């Protein structure tokens, strides 16, 4: 219950990392002599940052408020989920560095704007950075592995290694502590039927749904999108009819970096800029993708994210303030047990056999 007292804007992730004293090694594990590598990349248990329910009318949190706040944070999860799903769609690789792409966008925006530039220029630079790093992760960590064996699990090691490199490079360059993130919108909020929605939250919902819709339209109705579908279905066949898999994959990783970067900029004002943000959001994005069934259809990850956001906000409001640490995972287990391919995937086995339209 003590965590309820923490004000609306929190950066639990930064705090928890400070407590772990990553740099000085956690005192507990130093005795056993194991390094930072084992047990350092943990964040989930210490609680993800939340776009929490406004605590002004504590005790009277309406269902509507829960849904709105849930949609807001769920939009962020959905964007990261889609980012993961887009790169998975083309390469069948889970990019473990996805959360770090979000972090890079936040860090670059914070760094550039603190140097005195306009925040909007900083935002553009941040998005560019996450795109570039996204493409880099493909070139460095994914392509060489797939070139050897399309079905090996080696990407797990290399994308994880890439995440470690990016995260620690950020910590090395910008320091491990949180930095301020420029406010992009004023802090006025909307009152809708007794519930409160900040502009930031509204922007998150609108942007996420808009991006998801645009992506789905492009995927279905452009030649390039159909090329992506062909490669997702059978890369060998697609390259036999002349598709350049590398180009499509590079574009997919760039788009996925862009999505992660946008998610970062939407969440940045609430989390501040901290180099260790990546894992938490990467994990929630991953859950969003799995709940929704984004492995088959990227846009399903957005639905998964929105559902995840509402469920974790609901768990926070109804069970206790720490419930969103574990409740989403419980939901994921239940969903995976009943529909292993996710809730919003393209339906049953026979439907999938039909050619995609």
């Amino acid at each position, binding site marked *: 219950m003590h965590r309820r007292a923490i004000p609306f804007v929190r950066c639990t992730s930064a705090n928890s990392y400070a407590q772990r004293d*990553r*740099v000085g*090694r*956690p005192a*507990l*594990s130093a*005795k*056993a*002599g*194991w*390094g*930072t*590598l*084992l*047990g*350092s*990349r*943990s964040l*989930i*248990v*210490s609680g993800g940052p939340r776009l929490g329910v406004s605590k002004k009318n504590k005790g009277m949190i309406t269902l509507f408020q829960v849904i709105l706040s849930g949609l807001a944070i769920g939009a962020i999860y959905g964007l990261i989920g889609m980012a993961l799903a887009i790169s998975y769609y083309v390469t069948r690789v*889970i990019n473990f560095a996805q959360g770090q792409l979000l972090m890079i966008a936040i860090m670059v925006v914070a760094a550039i704007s603190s140097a005195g530039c306009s925040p909007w220029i900083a935002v553009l630079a941040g998005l560019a950075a996450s795109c570039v790093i996204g493409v880099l992760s493909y070139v*460095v*960590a994914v392509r*060489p*592995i797939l070139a*050897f*064996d399309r079905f*090996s*699990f*080696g990407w*797990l*090691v*290399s994308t*994880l*290694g*890439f*995440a*470690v*490199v990016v*995260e*620690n*490079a950020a*910590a*090395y360059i910008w320091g491990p502590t949180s930095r301020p993130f420029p406010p992009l919108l004023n802090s006025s909020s909307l009152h809708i039927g007794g519930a409160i929605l900040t502009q930031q939250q509204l922007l998150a919902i609108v942007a996420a749904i808009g991006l998801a819709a645009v992506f789905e339209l492009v995927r279905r109705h452009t030649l390039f999108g159909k090329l992506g579908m062909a490669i997702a279905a059978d890369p060998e066949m697609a390259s036999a009819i002349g598709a350049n898999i590398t180009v499509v994959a590079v574009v997919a990783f760039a788009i996925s970096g862009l999505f992660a970067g946008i998610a970062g900029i939407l969440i940045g004002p609430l989390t501040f800029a901290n180099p260790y943000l990546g*894992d938490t959001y990467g994990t929630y994005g991953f859950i969003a993708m*799995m709940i929704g069934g984004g*492995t088959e259809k990227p846009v399903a990850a957005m639905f998964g994210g929105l559902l995840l956001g509402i469920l974790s906000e609901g768990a926070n409001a109804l069970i206790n303030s*720490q419930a969103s*640490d*574990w409740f989403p*995972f419980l939901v*994921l*287990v239940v969903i*995976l*047990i009943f529909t*292993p391919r996710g809730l919003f995937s393209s339906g*049953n*086995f*026979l439907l999938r056999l039909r050619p995609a339209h």
Partner: protein
Amino acid sequence: MNGKPVQVSTPVGRMGQIAARLKQAAGLLVVVGYVLLTYIVANLNLNLQSLVLVAAVFGILAISLDLVAGTLGLYSLGQGGFFAIGAYATTLAATDLNINVFVLLPVILAITGLSGMMIGAMSLRVSGLYFAITTFIFTLIITVLATDLQITGGTQGLLGPPFPDFPQSLTVLGSSVAWCAMLSLFAATALVWNIRKSPLYPVLLAIRDAEPFAEAAGARTALIKIGVFGLSASLAGFAGWLFSFLGVVSPGQFDWAVSLNILVMVLLGGINTTLGPLVGAAFVSAFPAVVNINPWLQEIIYGALSIFAITVFPEGVVGIIKRYVFRDGRSETIGRADQQEAAPVPLSRPNQALMQHGPAVDEIMVECRGIEFGYGSGPKVLRNVDLIVKRGHIHGLIGPNGSGKSTLANVIAGRLRPSSGTTTVRGSRVDRFAPSDRARLGLRRTFQAAELVRELTTRQNVLVGLYSSVPGIVRRAAVWPLLPSGRRDMKQMQTRAAEALLSAGAGDWTNRRVGGVPHGIEQLTQLASVCVAGPDIIILDEPATGLSTREVDHLARILSGLKAQGVTMIIIEHQTRFLFPLCDQVTFLNAGEVILTGTADEVRANSVVRQVYLGE
């Protein structure tokens, strides 16, 4: 087993004996060296020692993961969870209840083993990425519990129990916990090595790569998966037991990132190798201690090194060494020698029933009545199909593509459950039997698209076929090479497999990996793996596809030979020129319905058959 063990010819035999001696000596040398190493570790300074011991614990974890990931293809992220259960249970029971840690050990193994079996049961529903995720969530729940429960001491964790010291007379040996950890690591490595040397190993790989093949050989794949996963969980729990003596037990040491790191160790070192996991564990654990610089730079270097290692050695460090040092060349010569020894013997054992009762021709071996089947909600693929196959007959099954021949074969073999109708094999109703149970009744089958383990040799693939005819493979697997009966059985199985391949006409390919043999040899390997077990009924799904004319002739001779021994066969085939002369009866299927059953001549003369199938 077949009553005539092939005598080993003298020069090769003597060489073999010398080789065996050398092997024993080398084994002894390894053990002595390892004990010496342990002695050194036990007397190291505390910092270095704890580093080695933690690496040893992670070595056990990596081995436990490789056991399921390498051999069964189950990429588990649950090892951290079992590890945590082991460590917390030991700490709580030893400090709060004062239970002796050695008494505790079997309890810990049982608890983690059982929880492993429960998690392993999930692998029957989900596989690949989804299995990784479900096990990941298991680890996560364990860590959340460890953090939130009162009894586990929250994020601070608990101080582990002390490990009992050596008695006064043995203090010269050094630290007792070091001995315990190092010997445990040795035991774990030996356990997995034993399994890899046992005939269970090709079966495990078959479950990983070609599950229908393993099932058709009589392996209860679901039970084996669950059992092996339980064993792996037990090993992880064992590592946890060991870890609790090394200091503080806290949630951060067991979370999903640790599970992921264990997988990184396995992949870096070389998946599905005996020493790979150890190499990986040593690298990952020792890295921060060896490279002692600015922690961020250190992690950057670590990340970069792991990317580098996995891209340059995609099969892991040990995997790449194995590939270049032990290429096919070495085993090739052994294969030649074996072929010279093995006399061309009949492919199948003389059929017991036939010997006893004489050719009771009218006995019905396989009977299908009113079989109806449809995939999903689609149209019916089989409609009211009746099929009767008599003892000793070769029963041909022909029809255009999509007429339901392979579906019918799958129904008889038990891979598909018909929506209605009954199947009887040798007089007993088998409607509720799994494919493995039908295989144990003496019903074997081949697959249209060869289901084989590509990374094993053809002979090892044939070994899979012997699974149900050698008793106690699973029971003995953990100690197989240590048992005289194990070594004897293995030798016999190897010989039988080589003989079967030779008689099938694939003798030149005995020690070649299936991944590198022509399609026709795959077909013959399938045939050999079916025949090696001496079945009563064989279902062959397009056996002549991809064979050369000469090989087809040879195949026809083999099948006639099998028939002469009283084996009943159902053959699906398009090459009627090959099929019709062999067949006693031919059934013609069209669009899921039996049009006609009769002799080859009757079928050939039928106007529908000529119109629909033979093309006139």
